[in-house]
């Protein structure tokens, strides 16, 4: 067996939520329970809901979906005297390019998610929870649905959970395939049956979310951590990671590496460790050129950032973001202009169309980048790319557009020479595509 997959519940390793990945039995409810599963939920049900919130607050757990908001604090924002129902929604619309850790968490141990979801629901006194599954995740949608059925059969969901007087219904809901529905208010619109477009905030979902009622929205990985915090305590959890970013993070490593995959490491682990010890280093022993720490929406870093710790604070200090914890690795033979073009094409395709800078800005960026990559760039295109970055960032309705800016500004910051080479040579220096002459010459 792969040593990375070894271990089981209770075995002390550096891993928390992937520690059972070596044990195929935990996929079903019986194996999950036999391995100690749902103990955290039972523990929670014996506590007052407020104490559960305090415990999670004390653990310092921060949201793993990108923004890193403290989970317990988010739960405590839910007003309890509105006369409206409270909802918990699990955001399983994992669509960020390069990110696939939620998928494997569900693939291997779906009940860990359900247990975390049930604890969250209990903490905020919610009786109706939803799991919003990414539209393209056909298989995972089925897994979630079956796991929910199993949990109902075993009394972990439904009326009087685990013999308590707490009722909880969980409804899995599959999206229709839109990146914007990973944005929490877009997700809520989609869940209500409307167009997947973000809503104005405030009001924030904690006050007016699903069906204008108080709503907690948590990422899959966030919820998966919750049962372990309940079981082992806040101090235990704080034993992992850094002071401000406690716990572990499952990193999805892809691109030019020897062993792509998901690796759970303590927060603050240097990227060098993740790349070299876990992912086996750059493919074929080539040199590292660029990498994203948190998926395509986080600014790219370079080889000079190899020793940056993978946690919220260190990455921000280095000019990037932890994001969803997805390292896309480019080696020395990769063209960053082409990489930026592909990523911008993704954002242009996924822009919901609601606001001008995102809709038109990404459309324009794709066209300019395509021209440059095809050897038809002009010297005046670089200032345009600069302006695009400046005029989109923080000007759009929702953060989707800010993510789209990351590939533009980071590649212009670190690899401006590569853009200039494309324009100067009238072709892509890596693929050789293009007329090989300046566009003015082609025209004349």
């Amino acid at each position, binding site marked *: 067996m792969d040593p990375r997959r070894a271990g089981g519940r209770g075995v002390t390793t550096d891993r928390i939520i992937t520690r059972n990945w070596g044990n195929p039995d935990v996929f079903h409810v019986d194996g999950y329970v036999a391995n100690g599963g749902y103990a955290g939920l039972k523990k929670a049900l014996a506590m007052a809901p407020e104490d559960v919130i305090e415990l999670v607050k004390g653990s310092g757990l921060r949201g793993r979906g990108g923004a890193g908001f403290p989970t317990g604090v988010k739960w405590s924002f839910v007003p309890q005297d509105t006369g409206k129902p409270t909802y918990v929604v699990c955001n399983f619309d994992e669509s960020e390019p390069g990110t696939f850790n939620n998928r494997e968490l569900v693939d291997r141990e779906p009940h860990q998610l359900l247990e975390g979801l049930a604890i969250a629901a209990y903490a905020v006194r919610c009786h109706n929870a939803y799991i919003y599954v990414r539209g393209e995740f056909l298989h995972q949608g089925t897994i979630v649905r079956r796991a929910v059925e199993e949990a109902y059969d075993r009394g972990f969901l439904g009326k009087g959970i685990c013999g308590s007087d707490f009722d909880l219904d969980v409804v899995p809901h599959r999206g229709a395939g839109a990146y914007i529905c990973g944005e929490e208010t877009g997700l809520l619109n989609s869940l209500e049956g409307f167009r997947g477009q973000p809503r104005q905030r405030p009001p924030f979902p904690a006050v007016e979310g699903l069906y204008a009622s108080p709503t907690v929205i948590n990422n899959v990985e966030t919820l998966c951590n919750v049962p372990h915090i309940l079981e082992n305590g806040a101090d235990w959890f704080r034993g992992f990671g850094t002071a401000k970013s406690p716990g572990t993070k499952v990193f999805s490593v892809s691109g030019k590496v020897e062993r792509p995959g998901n690796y759970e490491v303590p927060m603050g682990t240097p990227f060098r460790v993740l790349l070299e010890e876990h992912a086996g280093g750059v493919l074929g022993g080539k040199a590292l050129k660029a990498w994203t720490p948190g998926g395509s929406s986080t600014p790219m870093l370079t080889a000079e950032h190899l020793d940056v710790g993978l946690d919220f604070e260190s990455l921000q200090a280095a000019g990037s973001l932890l994001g969803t914890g997805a390292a896309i690795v480019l080696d020395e033979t990769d063209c960053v202009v082409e990489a930026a073009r592909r990523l911008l094409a993704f954002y*242009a*395709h996924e822009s*919901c169309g609601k606001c001008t800078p995102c*809709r*038109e800005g990404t*459309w324009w960026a794709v066209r300019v980048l395509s*021209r440059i990559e095809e050897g038809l760039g002009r010297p005046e295109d670089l200032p345009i790319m600069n302006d695009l970055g400046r005029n989109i960032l923080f000007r759009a309705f929702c953060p989707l557009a800010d993510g789209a800016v990351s590939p533009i500004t980071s590649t212009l910051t670190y690899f401006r020479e590569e853009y200039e080479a494309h324009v100067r040579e009238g072709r892509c220096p890596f693929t050789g595509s293009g007329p090989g002459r300046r566009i003015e010459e082609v025209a004349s």
Partner: protein
Amino acid sequence: MTQEAVTLTIDGKEVTVPKGTLIIRAAEQLGIEIPRFCDHPLLEPAGACRQCYVEVEGQAKLFTSCTATVAPGMAVRTQNSSEVVHEAQVANLEFLLLNHPLDCPICDRGGECPLQDQALAFGPGESRYVEAKRTFEKPIPLSPLVGLDRERCVLCARCTRFCDQISGDRFIELFARGAGERVSIAAGEDFLSPFSGNTIQICPVGALTATPYRFVARPFDLSSVDTVCPHCSAGCNVKLDVRRGKVVRHLARDNLDVNDAWLCDKGRFAFRFPDDERRVTIPLLRDRGLEPTSFGEVMDAIGDWSRGKRVAFLTGGRLADEDAYALSKVARTAFVTNDLDHRREFAGGEAERLAAVAVTDRALSVTYRDVERAKAIVVAGLDAEQEVPILHLRLRKAARRGARIFVLNPRRTRLWDVAEHVLCRPGQEAHVLEQIVDGEGGDSGVGRAADALREAGEAGVVLAGMRLAEHPLAADVALRAARRTGARFSLVPRRAGDKGALAAGVHPRLLPGGRRVDDPGERAEVEAVWGELKNVVPGRNAKQILEAAANREIDVLFLVGVDPLRDFPDARLARHALENVPYKVVQSLELGSLEPFADAFLPAAAFPERDAHFTTWEGRAQRIRPVRGPAGLSRPDWEIFAGLARAMGGSLGFESLEDLQEESVGLLSPRAFSGGASAWVGAGAPQWIDELTLFTYPLLVDEGRLSEGASELKAALEEKPFLEIHPVDADKRSIADGGEVRVRTQAGQAVVPVRVTPDIAEGSVFVPFNQPGLAANTLLSGRFTAGATVEAVAAAEAAADPERLTVGGGP
């Protein structure tokens, strides 16, 4: 809710506004205009176009001022004082223009386009975008009225938000995403909202255009006037655009007390009637045929016919307030008759007298604002969307603000999604309303309506439509229901001139100001101005006038802006009347079907050609202004009446509009109203004699005179004749939806397509009053309801039936 005040500075200037105010609105208070496209003060914020950036001190990111609310001490900087904001707005405009076709020279919006204006004011002079622009198929007809050019669209979502939030007619929606996002409509659907034109007017670019205005004019070609729509009692404020003497467009003007910023499609698109080719603009006198002549000769002839003879006047709803006053006076002084009537329904009773008084005293009436702020509203006998459309939008607005609305009508209305309907068979309204008066009804729609009205108290409103005027004293019971619960009450007539005519006393029993002609005290107040009235006996109402005419008891019949053959709910009686009156004087824009009957024709000026007032259903008099002179020899109606007085050897006592207004203001100023006791003593449940009750009222778009020439409007919204019947009644008669039925009444019969629908009260059948191919008044005997039988007609029989869609003889 108390209105907490917030003080902030914008560009260094201090302003205090209520808490919750958007920054963009606060800036407007200071006269600072922040550029915007998606923002509209009557729509909920979208934050979509991103043009209205402002900088807020202490905040790293720019704010969109159309979504951000003010906070105490906030320091806002707009493009006027912040370079960053200015640059962001320029950059955003550059984004908006990337894919815009820049076809301003051929765009209907060119010259009055916010995008064009802003691009000119601060946009980049040259585009840095060198790639191909996004293209769409265009123009796409969303309906015969509305064309969509997606390439020009900036996706501000004003149109879709209007349909969602204001009209509730969600025909159009944004489809697809990213740069491919577009406004669209379900395949095979038409944009069938009677408010569709508003989306054109609020479109900040030329993406939505009006078919009747397509390529018709440039803004600098137009002369315009601010006036009031003549189509119904809503009184929408409009701007009339004329090009080379022809009316080419109506636009809504903003007036938050009346129409907000909206206009119905009839008011917007039925503007060609003043220029209709059938219009007659010279006086005519019958010799061998109707011969052109002068006003002097016609007046002399009429004087000869009328002196010492029995004269009666019927009017339509077109007359302005001043015309109605002049008519009321000329009929009673010069022609010594009380046989004059503007109505087709016969309200009578206290509610009507109150309405006549309330026109002059709005404390007694209901306003749009009252509706908007009401907590409970009962709408009885009124299909607001079809009859007074802007009131319909106000009711929807009230619903959005939390009002509970109850509609008491034989037919479900388009308030169905925001109101509870109590469907009742025509004739039953009084009984149902009485349950509200008595607080009966329990756990039913009526009971809930009564409870809601009682809870609302002064914030309750009862609106009585013209359907209530059909039933003896039904409007009075509605009034009593309002009095009992503390609600405000208003009678809501349909036509633009109705309230003015009622106030002026174009009525057999009522003089100006609702004074009773047979009440010596009230009459004396009028006589103090008019001189002694020689005829103090209440006159005949419209039906009685026609009956008298048919019995040769009338010598001269004036038909002022009315065609009884088409308008009166008894076509046969109207015909007999016309055949048996020696002299018929038609005063109108055209002759129409009266041509064979008219002995004299007096050409009237149309509403864009004159100065006057129209009074809304609320009792609000609003000025109409001329945009051109009277066509041909036509004259304003009041001038014609003044001439008639002279022809009769007298004088109306005023030679100018100002003199007329000065005289009338005394009689039409507020006065005390003491409601007399109503004769109503309790209805009990009505007993039905007839098998079914047929009822009818005009739909918004029909064959009415003022819709002449509005071909696009009719293509979009005019329905073919139909008959609605409840499924229970249909089943009993083996009638299938979509087939044809024969409807018989005492007056006649017709074969019409049938719609089986639960949206009508059991025991009732509905046909629209005046759709092309079926004049419903051929089925009526003086009222808008009639006992009827309905039977299925086999398809083959229907096709062979020569009487199909026509009138037969008796039953």
